[in-house]
């Protein structure tokens, strides 16, 4: 009598053959599967954190001119996008401090997290699992954890900015035989009668522009210089209203009842049933059509 899977004289031989054959296949499959189950030596640290700028009104991604991103105590350059930054977390500690410099202001973030090492295998060595992200802003910005587990492509931390209530949008139009059609201009430079940033593409033509209005005055003059060295002077007049819409933003100045005139363009307020066209929105909506 053998010590493995002996034949049994009291069982139907055909039946036992099937049993032994199928059992052998099963055992073989189990052993092969066991041999194949070796750990993989990749993704050993999930320490990337994606910080994104967002609008406080709707949580949508915001486009921001980022000048620099740095981690306190570290002299490295990190991947920047115009909607945020991708940073590595220090897996030897539980916190890092991040400085975000954009054209509007400098924001400070204190990011906390949990680090749990794990021995993976003799070949791979250890890995580090980061989790339980927390974030606060010593600079008083509105920040929130969107996904508490670092790594991957998801957005982990949102930096919410208060509404910009002073950007008027004009669309360039022209009259044609088939009606009003889109027009384009190539802007060389802009200037305003107060200190303001106007962000527009440095190359190519524009069919619309967002222009800043002075929230400390009831009128703003803006000069557009085009690529053919001609100029257009635009004047906006409006009313200012102070109110608190978002608690974290405090009392803000809102602009209503905007009127526009220009020396080169014929400025017409657009008609819309979806929004009040003489008020300012964030993100901006078209307030005026500028006809050449």
């Amino acid at each position, binding site marked *: 009598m053998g010590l493995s899977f002996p034949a049994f004289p009291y069982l139907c031989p055909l039946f036992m053959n099937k*049993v032994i054959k*199928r059992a052998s296949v099963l055992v073989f499959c189990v052993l092969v*599967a066991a041999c194949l*189950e070796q750990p993989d030596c990749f993704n050993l640290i999930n320490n990337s954190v994606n910080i994104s700028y967002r609008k406080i009104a709707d949580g949508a991604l915001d486009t921001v001119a980022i000048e620099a991103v740095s981690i306190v105590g570290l002299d490295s350059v990190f991947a920047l996008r115009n909607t945020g930054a991708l940073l590595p977390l220090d*897996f*030897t500690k539980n916190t890092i401090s991040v400085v975000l410099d954009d054209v509007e202001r400098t924001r400070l973030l204190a990011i906390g997290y949990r680090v749990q*090492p*794990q021995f993976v295998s*003799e*070949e791979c060595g250890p890995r580090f699992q980061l989790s339980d992200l927390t974030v606060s802003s010593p600079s008083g910005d509105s920040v929130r954890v969107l996904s508490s587990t670092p790594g991957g492509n998801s957005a982990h931390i949102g930096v919410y900015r208060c509404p910009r209530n002073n950007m008027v949008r004009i669309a360039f139009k022209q009259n044609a035989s088939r009606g009003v059609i889109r027009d384009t201009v190539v802007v060389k430079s802009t200037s305003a009668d107060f200190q303001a940033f106007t962000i527009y593409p440095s190359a190519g033509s524009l069919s619309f522009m967002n222009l800043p209005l002075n929230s400390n005055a009831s009128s703003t003059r803006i000069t557009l210089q085009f690529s053919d060295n001609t100029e257009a002077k635009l004047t906006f007049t409006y009313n200012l209203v102070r109110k608190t819409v978002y608690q974290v933003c405090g009392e803000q100045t809102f602009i209503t009842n905007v009127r526009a005139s220009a020396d080169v363009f014929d400025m017409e307020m657009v008609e819309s049933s979806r929004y009040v066209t003489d008020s300012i929105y964030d993100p901006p909506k078209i307030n005026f059509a500028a006809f050449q």
Partner: protein
Amino acid sequence: MRPFNNILLIILLTSHFAFSQKKDSVNAKAFIPTGIRLGYDLVSPGRAALVNTFDGFEASVDVDLYRYYPTVEIGNSARSFASVNGSTYTNTGDYWRAGVDVNFMKKDPEKNMFFLGARYGRATYDEEATIITSDPVWGSYNQTLQNESLTARWMELTTGMRIKVWKIFWLGYTARFKFSLKLDDSGDLLTTDVPGYGTTDRPTTWGFSYYALVKLPIRKAK
């Protein structure tokens, strides 16, 4: 999908036996055990002799209630790993599994078994790791971390055979598909290996036990 493919494989291999036997009536006496069967896993000492990262044992006990075999398995396991970069990991702990096997060779006069079953497993263990690594941005990391009295639980689907070799001596194997592992990950160190379950890097795993068994008779089987 892989776990479900594995389950399907087990079901297909055993379904033939499940449905190929005629239904018959069972009297109440069939549910009185004919004996208590004690088993000792031969894989564990073999593995300990061949692999220097493992030490442990496993034993089992079951009784026959007609074609149903309530089973308890207990064991002890210790693992010790060292990586090429100097990191080390050790654990030691006890485990038990409880469940039922269903014999599909119910007409066999010797009560030989080809079975399908299920288990609930639970382990209590201690572990320690020295984690060493270096990173071009964040520098070096060298820490020794410990977790004590951790518990883990899991489920198993089992299949296997039990064959009477001579008088009270039996041999048999159990193949296990282990899944639904629940770990206590509140410690500073994440678990690498759970005694009785295996490595934790994947959501499912396989196991194999080959038992030498002794059946202590209670009554004579018909």
